[in-house]
């Protein structure tokens, strides 16, 4: 890494023009985009296989159906629950507020396996019916079942987004509407729905991205979706680049949708009033139906899969429940925390860089950086790995120079790449959250800091950081939850000795030993429950923005 005079000068000019924190932001942004760009570029490689149009159309049709129905049901569930909890008062309100977010702790694939077990012949549900003299079982392994599973495991994205949005914004709207004596249906449809467009879109974007990138549920349920096509081309036709091309097409579609959506949203103005003291909750006189709705939702989305897992786990309890499980759990918490920390840190500097930029470049490239969330994890893992194979080959002279002999794949086999792959995959979760957090902060504060002689980096630590701290913690928890549930990247890039919870779930489900897998799944869910509870109980500092 020798620099001649010229490049030193360029570097110096660069340092002068941009602050260090911005340079870190740019570098992080570009780094995150590289694997995604790599993926897009690979898509242009010539490949032989073409899936028949008929198949492709079936895949696309099924995926679109799933997106639409899951989008609607997850949106409906998330929005109505958040709406009622934000503005109405009824017994057990605070309890429900937390527990309704808990399904987020259950990986969709695990929910899928548990539910089909629960409903099928000899399952708990048919046996329960049996005690009433009804012999009936249900086969939910089909597209309806898949839609159901995605809806119940993904709706909390919408729910949480709506909850935190309602907390800040809409008191005046709702209060005005209430003064006008609108009934609750009108209040919800005329005020709630239009008002919640922003969090609804944000939540649904995550839902859809996760849905299209998932393969586990639809493979198990035998549903032919777009990701089936990606896997089929790769696994069955051995055409890796064909698979990448297909996922690049998907990527472009998602990218276009996200871009158009944010473009349209630009024209909308939101009145983010500062929180008026505290919203007076509307007392619900007869809460019976409300409680039935909430309890049913809780049972269906969370309790049932949990019961099934506990039931399965009982059989393997003694085999697995030992010190090793504790060790694996601690390992998992350790690496997940570090990875989440890095992910949030990188998202933060990128968001800081993007926030002041009006130009189209920064916006576009930051959108691109979040696209990893809609690519199947295994492809993200491989493209990160391959990108760094190439980087390593470039850096060989450097490695020799600093005394690493023989070894070529230094970076790509390091923990760095393991962690970095998570960043590429989950950028959408942390970046979008942090970006939304930035929008809540009065931009004049940053400008005021500049007029008070603070450089961008100083402002970053003295203004951005303390004000964003709650948002950062929140993002940390959200990413933690994602990495906790993540499988393909973990499996592919983890150091050989690192034993993880998802690794064991994979081993045992692959082996069709569901009892053993259930114990590990339960530990994941338990950690998830703790994380989700922290998210929901999290209180922001009481100062209100000026």
């Amino acid at each position: 890494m020798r620099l001649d005079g010229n490049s030193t000068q360029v570097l110096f000019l660069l340092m002068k023009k941009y602050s260090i924190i911005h340079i870190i932001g740019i570098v992080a942004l570009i780094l995150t985009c590289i694997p995604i760009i790599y993926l897009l570029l690979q898509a242009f490689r010539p490949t032989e296989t073409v899936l028949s149009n008929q198949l492709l159309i079936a895949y696309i049709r099924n995926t679109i159906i799933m997106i639409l129905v899951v989008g609607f049901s997850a949106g409906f569930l998330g929005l109505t629950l958040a709406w009622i909890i934000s503005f109405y008062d009824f017994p057990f309100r605070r309890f429900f507020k937390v527990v309704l977010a808990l399904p987020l702790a259950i990986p969709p694939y695990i929910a899928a396996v548990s539910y089909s077990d629960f409903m099928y012949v000899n399952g708990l549900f048919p046996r329960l019916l049996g005690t009433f003299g009804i012999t009936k079982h249900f086969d939910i392994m089909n597209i309806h079942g898949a839609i159901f599973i995605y809806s119940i495991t993904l709706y909390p994205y919408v729910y949480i987004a709506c909850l935190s949005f309602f907390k800040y914004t809409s008191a005046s709207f709702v209060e005005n509407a209430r003064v006008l004596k609108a009934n609750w249906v009108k209040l919800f449809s005329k005020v709630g729905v239009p008002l919640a467009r922003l969090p609804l879109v944000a939540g649904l974007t995550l839902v859809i991205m996760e849905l299209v990138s998932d393969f586990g549920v639809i493979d198990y349920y035998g549903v032919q979706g777009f990701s089936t096509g990606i896997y089929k081309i790769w696994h069955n036709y051995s055409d890796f680049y064909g698979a990448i091309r297909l996922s690049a097409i998907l990527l472009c579609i998602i990218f276009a949708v996200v871009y158009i959506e944010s473009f349209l949203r630009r024209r909308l103005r939101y009145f983010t009033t500062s929180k008026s003291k505290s919203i007076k909750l509307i007392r619900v006189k007869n809460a019976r139906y409300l409680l039935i709705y909430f309890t049913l939702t809780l049972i269906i989305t969370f309790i049932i899969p949990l019961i099934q897992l506990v039931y399965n786990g009982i059989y393997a309890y003694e085999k697995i429940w030992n010190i090793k499980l504790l060790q694996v759990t601690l390992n998992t918490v350790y690496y997940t925390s570090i990875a989440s920390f890095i992910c949030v840190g990188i998202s933060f500097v990128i968001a800081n860089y993007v926030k002041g930029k009006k130009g189209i470049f920064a916006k576009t490239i930051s959108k691109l950086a979040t696209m990893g969330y809609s690519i199947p994890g295994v492809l993200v893992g491989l493209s990160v790995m391959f990108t760094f194979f190439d980087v390593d080959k470039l850096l060989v002279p450097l490695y020799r120079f600093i005394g690493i002999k023989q070894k070529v794949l230094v970076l790509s086999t390091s923990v760095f790449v393991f962690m970095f792959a998570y960043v590429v995959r989950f950028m959408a979760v942390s970046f979008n959250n942090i970006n939304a957090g930035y929008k809540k902060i009065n931009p004049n504060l940053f400008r005021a800091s500049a007029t008070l002689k603070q450089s961008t980096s100083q402002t970053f630590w003295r203004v951005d950081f303390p004000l964003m701290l709650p948002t950062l913690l929140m993002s940390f928890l959200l990413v933690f939850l994602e990495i906790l549930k993540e499988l393909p990247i973990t499996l592919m890039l983890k150091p050989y000795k690192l034993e993880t919870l998802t690794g064991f779930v994979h081993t045992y489900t692959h082996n069709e030993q569901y009892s053993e897998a259930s114990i590990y799944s339960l530990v994941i869910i338990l950690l998830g429950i703790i994380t989700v509870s922290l998210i929901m109980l999290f209180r922001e500092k009481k100062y209100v923005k000026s």
Partner: protein
Amino acid sequence: MKKLLLIFSAALLLITGCAKKETADTTATEPTPTETTVSSGDQKVVLYTSRHYDTDQALFDAFKEKTGITVEVKQGDAKALLEEIEQGGEDLDADLFYTADAGKLAQAKEKGLFQTIGSDVVKSNVPEIYRDNDDMWTALTMRARIIVYSLENVDPAQLSTYEDLANEKWKGKIVTRPSSHVYNQSLVASFIEVNGLEETKEWAKGLVSNFAREPKGNDRDQVKAVAANEADIAIVNSYYIGKMITSDKPEEKEAVAKVGVFFPNQETTGTHVNVSGAGILKSSKNKENAVKLLEFLSSVEAQEQFSSANFEFPVNPNVEVKNELLKSWGEFKKQGINLSILGENNKKAQEIMDEVGWK
């Protein structure tokens, strides 16, 4: 600024902290290829595997006990592992590729990822038909893809061959898992070899039209479907039956008690078998150790383990099967084809399955 540096370096330290341990381990244990005399201290062999059995790990532990060589296992999806091996090339720290499908092994050979094993011990342990022609890989265990039938609805006298399952009399009575799974791909691939392309296509078409439901779930789910009278016949791998019989879950025991096991094509071409096997990678830096591991896994001692704990058939003919279930199934006639064919025909098989609508 100071704070920034502090946090940054703290994070870096944390990362490199766990990274360093790793690299220290590997550099310490990595012998240079020329060093042949081995003091069996911290020797290792890196195994890329798509198999996930506890029993495998038990064997690796036994191997370590015996030779002092640590088996570093990297588990993963076979395809993903192969991509990594291919892209990483010579630089990758990987010695062996171990997977549960002969087709995949053949593909790895075709891509030039293997080197010759060159071990007389392996050759004497494993019969020629279970080894690659060019000594690039060897099978270690075997499983049969068999017919499971409903004891209630099917008289086993009605059963004869896989080919017969395309007969109209089975309309709406057969279940199996999706075509995305390699077990079914290899089944069809073997048929292309045995019966020819056209006949296989006709057969697959007939089979699909006899499906009781859209293919879904895994092999155990197929058995459960037969037990639930949703279908009369399922095509599944042999060792799952053993696992269900010994399952902790009463539901699985109940389900498997309602079905019978049938080895098809005994009078004709033989039951379809597939193998788990391994080959030594070109990138191997611990070839000696890799050879030792293969020799160990094909030895009588290890082969007994495969059959008794995991219900797989041993490939070493000297092993006396002690497992009661396997014993009760007795000897059976196997498809006599060269297993490399499974890899060669994989793509054609896939095309056929897509064409006839085997989802």
